[in-house]
């Protein structure tokens, strides 16, 4: 069975005034239809750039150096802007981090949702159904994300709604085109903790019911664990470890993954000082040679400075890119 999403040795550069940022350095990710993948990593590790590249809305000046992103047997990185319109929102759609800034403040929710629905028909070259039908669809979409007061919400502007409500609306917009693949870019980061749980529960329910394939991006390991069957750990533009969530969270092999998990507070057991990974994420204009993690790695040796580690299998559906991976 071929994967629905296949990212193969994908390298991306972003030229800046100070030099070329090597933001993505050979990403390999494969995702089966109906599977859920969580991408974890620190801020600036390239996870959002990767997510946006899948949607074709990455930085304008970004340059693909090598590799492909193949979705449903189509190489996305070779699509024209016109072709993209038949993909965005219809086959792949996205939900975003901060639901306040990702909704247009000057248009009502109804207008924005209605526009999204209309745009999907236009993009596929189908005649849009009558206005009342499209409005009814707006209502159904809101009901799908468990908004009860649909008429009031449709007439509201974003600033009149709560953060949780706005995130539900963004989810409704993302689902409007009945996409196969849903990319969730830190969907709970900007929300209150109680709302986070609600949104995660809602997403979990939708994913199960609609059989969505999901790529979720977060630095919140808990949120990832709640939604994803598989996990990829990113560091400085590379995937350092990838496998089932269970295997990675219970038995991390990469020193970076270990550090990341050790940095989480443990509410069970005795209070212990949190461990931090020493150092900061590297400058991607001049990334460290060999393994990009070596300057911060407790296990680094001479070979780590010289050779980029190959990705190797360390168990059923568990790969790691490290010269000195834990057993």
């Amino acid at each position: 069975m071929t994967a629905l999403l296949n990212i193969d040795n994908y390298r991306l550069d972003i030229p800046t005034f100070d030099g070329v940022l090597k933001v993505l350095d050979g990403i390999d990710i494969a995702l089966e239809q109906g599977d859920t993948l969580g991408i974890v990593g620190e801020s600036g590790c390239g996870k959002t750039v990767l997510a946006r590249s899948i949607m074709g809305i990455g930085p304008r000046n970004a340059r693909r150096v090598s590799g492909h992103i193949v979705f449903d047997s189509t190489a996305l990185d070779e699509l024209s802007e016109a072709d993209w319109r038949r993909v965005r929102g219809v086959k792949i759609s996205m939900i975003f981090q901060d639901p306040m800034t990702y909704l247009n403040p000057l248009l009502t929710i109804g207008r924005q949702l209605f526009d999204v629905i209309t745009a999907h028909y236009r993009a596929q070259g189908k005649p849009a159904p009558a206005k009342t039908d499209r409005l009814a669809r707006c209502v159904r979409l809101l009901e799908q994300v468990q908004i009860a007061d649909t008429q009031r919400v449709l007439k509201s502007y974003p600033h009149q709604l709560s953060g949780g409500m706005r995130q539900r609306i963004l989810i409704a917009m993302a689902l409007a085109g009945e996409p196969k693949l849903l990319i969730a870019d830190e969907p709970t980061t900007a929300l209150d903790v109680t709302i986070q749980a609600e949104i995660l529960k809602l997403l979990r329910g939708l994913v199960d019911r609609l059989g969505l394939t999901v790529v979720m991006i977060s630095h919140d390991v808990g949120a990832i664990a709640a939604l994803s069957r598989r996990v990829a750990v990113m560091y400085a533009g590379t995937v350092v470890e990838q496998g089932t969530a269970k295997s990675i969270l219970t038995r991390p092999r990469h020193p970076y993954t270990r550090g990341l998990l050790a940095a989480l507070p443990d509410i069970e057991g005795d209070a212990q000082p949190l461990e931090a990974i020493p150092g900061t994420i590297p400058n991607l204009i001049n990334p460290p040679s060999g393994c990009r993690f070596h300057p911060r790695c407790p296990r680094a040796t001479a070979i780590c400075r010289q050779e980029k580690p190959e990705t190797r299998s360390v168990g059923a559906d568990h790969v790691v890119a490290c010269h000195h991976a834990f057993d």
Partner: protein
Amino acid sequence: MLTFTFRKVAVLVGTMLGLAALTFLITNVAPGDPARLVAGPDATNDMVETIRQEYGLDRPLYAQFAIYMGDLLTGDLGRSIVSTRPVIDELARYVPATLELVLVAMVLGILVGVPFGMLSAVYKDKFLDQVTRIFSISGVALPAFWFGILLQLFFAVRLEWLPVSGRLPLTELPPEPITHLLLVDSLLRGQFDTFRAALSHVILPAIVLSFPCLASILRVNRAEMIEVLQSDHIVAARAHGISSSRIVMIYALKNALLPTLAMIGLRFGWMLGSTVLVETVFDWPGIGLYAVSSALASDFKPVVGVTLVIGFFFMITNTLVDLAYAWIDPRLRSA
């Protein structure tokens, strides 16, 4: 929205009263004895005293202020010393001419400034953007009188496409007034030849007057569009599959229009106050010329009248801009 409108109108009335009070104060602290000025250089002290009483200048300041405000409310702005006609009648003659010129210039500024600012932002750093930027910088930098004369030389003298100056040819009778704006009146009366004549007269001065305004509208709109196009909700709209043209025309332009509107309001007031150079070059019978010639003759009442008129129009425009703001941005309505 209704309470918002009421509040804005209340503020408008308050500001207008403030402006009236301020002009009263300024004319009173200005050096020189108005009674003596009216009486003329050869008047005796008795004559000056008579005039002082006639004009109520011997009364206490608050009483004078009450009279002044009362006169203002009944539309009495006093008489011009030079022409001895009521200032209000003279303003009624000159204000529509300036207003027409400024309105045409404003329409030009908006029709060219907004779309080109938008295009310039969409094609940032491309050829079109470079051309537009050169154009907008020269718009701010060219002195109006020089640019006006240049246009006259080329389009009126060399090509003979357009008339050199004036508001209508001497042979053309103005239409029976309805709004006192020639372009509007001639259309309403169905006098299309007059309309064409009036339009050909207003084009050159309107271009000259609109140029700096057009340039600043363009620059503000460009800068705002560039910023809005990078904002999160535009990224989201793209991700949801909204077409690029719709994103630019509706999702981004509406947001970028807010600061542009503020600029339009400011520029409208600025144009009203700075028509004098253009009016001089094009011999346009407007308030700019009227104010300057009155000021040179130390004829204060017309100057005060013109100040009030410009001030009032400025405030009305800005109130309209505020209302438009609230109409566009729902967040302001509840504020």
